[in-house]
C-alpha cells in the first residue's frame, strides 16, 4: 500500500527564538522523521483553507525520535498564521522531499558549514549527520547574522564544542567577528584548500559570493525557490544553471534536482538579474 502523499501532522512545540520574528517549530512526523536528510525540505500547508493556497517549503532543521524541526520567519500570510498555532494544532505535510547535502563519497579532511541568517537552520543537523557517518575528519560550523539576537542557535552550537569548531559573525559586531559569514569562511580556508568541503545555506547574495571566493572550491549550497508542487511537476521553482558554451538557457528545479546544488553549476548573474 502506497503511503498517503501528504499527511496530517501535529505541532509539538512552536517557540520564538532569541529574535522573536524567528521561530522553531517541532512536528510529530512519525516515520517521515527517520527518512529526513539535511538539505531536504518539507512542504507544508494549513489544512482546511484555500488561502493561502500553495504549500511552503521549509528546510529540515532537525530530525529524530519521530520529530521534525523547522525554523521560520514571519514574512507572509502562511508564516504569520503558523506563528499563532499552538501545540496540538494540525498541519498538512508533504515530504521530506528533494536532494540534500551529499552523504556518501570520500571523507573530507575538513567540512566547513556556513549559514547566513535563518539559512543556518539545516547546518547543525548536517554537522551532526556528517559526524555520525564519519564523513569529515574535522567539522566547522560558521553562522552569520545581522545582530547577536539573530544568530541561530548560538548557545546550542557552542555546547557542541567538544567536536564542533564554531565561528560567529554579525553585521553590527554585537557578537563574534564584525563582518559576514563569508569573511569567516575565507579566514579559515587553508591555501590551497585541499580536502575542504563547504556546505552553505543562506540568502542568494551570500551564496553568489561563495561562488566567487575561490575557483574550484567544492561547495554545495541549498537554494530557495517559489514552489508550486514541490515534486518536480510544475516547473515553477526553477533556478538558472550555467548554460553550455553558446547554448540556450538551462534551468533546474529547486524541488527536484535541488534544493542542494554545486555552487558553480548555478548561473549567479542570471539569478541576480531575476531578483531570486
Amino acid at each position, binding site marked *: 500500500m502506497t503511503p498517503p*502523499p501528504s499527511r496530517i501532522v501535529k505541532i509539538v512545540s512552536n517557540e520564538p527564538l532569541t529574535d522573536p520574528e524567528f521561530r522553531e517549530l517541532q512536528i510529530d512526523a512519525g516515520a517521515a522523521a527517520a527518512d529526513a536528510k539535511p538539505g531536504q525540505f518539507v512542504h507544508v500547508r494549513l489544512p482546511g483553507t484555500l488561502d493561502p493556497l500553495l504549500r511552503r517549503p521549509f528546510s529540515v532543521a532537525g530530525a529524530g525520535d519521530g520529530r521534525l524541526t523547522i525554523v521560520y520567519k514571519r514574512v507572509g500570510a502562511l508564516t504569520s498564521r503558523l506563528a499563532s498555532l499552538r501545540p496540538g494544532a494540525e498541519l498538512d505535510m508533504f515530504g521530506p522531499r528533494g536532494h540534500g547535502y551529499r552523504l556518501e563519497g570520500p571523507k573530507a579532511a575538513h567540512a566547513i558549514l556556513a549559514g547566513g541568517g535563518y539559512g543556518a537552520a539545516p547546518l547543525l543537523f548536517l554537522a551532526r549527520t556528517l559526524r555520525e557517518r564519519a564523513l569529515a575528519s574535522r567539522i566547522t560550523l560558521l553562522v552569520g547574522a545581522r545582530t547577536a539576537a539573530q544568530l541561530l542557535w548560538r548557545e546550542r552550537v557552542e555546547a557542541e564544542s567538544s567536536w564542533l569548531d564554531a565561528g560567529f559573525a554579525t553585521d553590527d559586531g554585537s557578537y563574534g567577528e564584525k563582518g559576514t559569514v563569508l569573511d569567516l569562511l575565507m579566514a579559515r580556508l587553508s591555501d590551497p584548500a585541499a580536502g575542504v568541503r563547504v556546505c552553505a545555506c543562506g540568502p542568494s547574495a551570500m551564496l553568489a559570493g561563495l561562488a566567487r571566493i575561490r575557483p574550484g572550491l567544492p561547495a554545495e549550497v541549498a537554494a530557495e525557490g517559489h514552489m508550486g508542487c514541490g515534486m518536480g511537476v510544475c516547473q*515553477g*521553482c526553477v533556478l538558472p544553471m550555467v548554460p553550455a558554451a553558446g547554448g540556450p538557457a538551462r*534551468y533546474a528545479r529547486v524541488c527536484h534536482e535541488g534544493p542542494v546544488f554545486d555552487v558553480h553549476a548555478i548561473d549567479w548573474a542570471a539569478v541576480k538579474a531575476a531578483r531570486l
Partner: protein
Amino acid sequence: MTPDLSVRIGSLDLATPVLVSSGTFGYASEFSELVDLGGLGAIVVKSITLAPREGNKPPRIAETPAGMLNSIGLQNVGVDAFIAEKLPFLRTLPVPVIANVAGTTMEEYEAVCGKLAGREGIAGVELNISCPNVRHGGMEFGTNPAAAEEITRRCRPLVPGPLIVKLSPNVTDIAAIARAAESGGADAVSLVNTFLGAAINVETRTPRLSTVFGGLSGPAIRPLAVRCVWQVAGAVKIPIIGMGGIVTGEDAAEFILAGATAVSVGTASFLDPAAALAVTAGLRQYLVRQNCPSLRDLIGAARA
C-alpha cells in the same frame, strides 16, 4: 447504490469523468508512487511542442488570494523525446492518456500531431490554443474564431482518436470560439485555460513574474470558469470538459450541472497529488446524496 460515473468523449469511454489537467500532472510517472493512477478518468500530459523548450525566466510562480499565477512558458522535452522517453511509461497505464499539443505556427501543431498519430498509448489529442505565457504561444489561434476553426480542421485528419480543443477564457465571446472548434471537427472542447493576470511586489515595486503577465488558476477562478462552461454549453453539441479551480466533488458537480460532461483537476494536484481521486470520491458521494444513479443525468441539469 453505486452511481455510474462513466462518460463518453468522442469515441473514448471514460470510467470516471475526472481528468487531470495538462501542465499540472507532468508525464504522470512523477505521481506513480503517490497516487493510484488507475483511478483517474484520463491523464492529460504536459504540453508537447515540436522542439524542446527551456521555458521562461524565473520567477515563474506567484501566489494570489486562493489562486496562483504561472508563467512557465511551455517548458517541455519536445515531441521526439516525449515519444522516446515518456511514452513507454504512459503506455503501461490502465487509463487513457491524452497528449496536449502546443506550438507557435499551424505547421508546428500539424507536425506534432503527425508524429503522435497512431502511437500506441495515445488515446487522443488536446490542442492547446490557449497558452497565455508564450509570445505566439497559440493563444492567437484561441482568440480568433476563424483561426481556431482552421487549426482544428488541419489537425483533425492527423488525430485518429478524439480531438479536444482547449479554449482560452481571455476572449470576448468564448462561445464563438467553441462553435469554431466544433465546425472544424473537434470531438470536444476543454475549458478553461488560465486567465491572464498580473501581481506586483509593492516593496520592491517590481512585477512578481518575469514576464509580468501570467495565467491565473486555482479556486479564485472557479466562478469565472463555471460561467464560461455555461456559455459554451449553450452554443455547442460536442461534450465539454470543464475545469478551473476544482478542489472538491461539489466543485466538480457545479461544472457538470452547468453543462460539462467531464471535469479536470489542475492546480489542486499541487496541493495534494491525489486531489483528482478525492474529487472523484466526492462526486460519487454527491450522486448518492442526490439519489442520482448516473452522472450523465446531471449534465446541464442546472440549465433546465
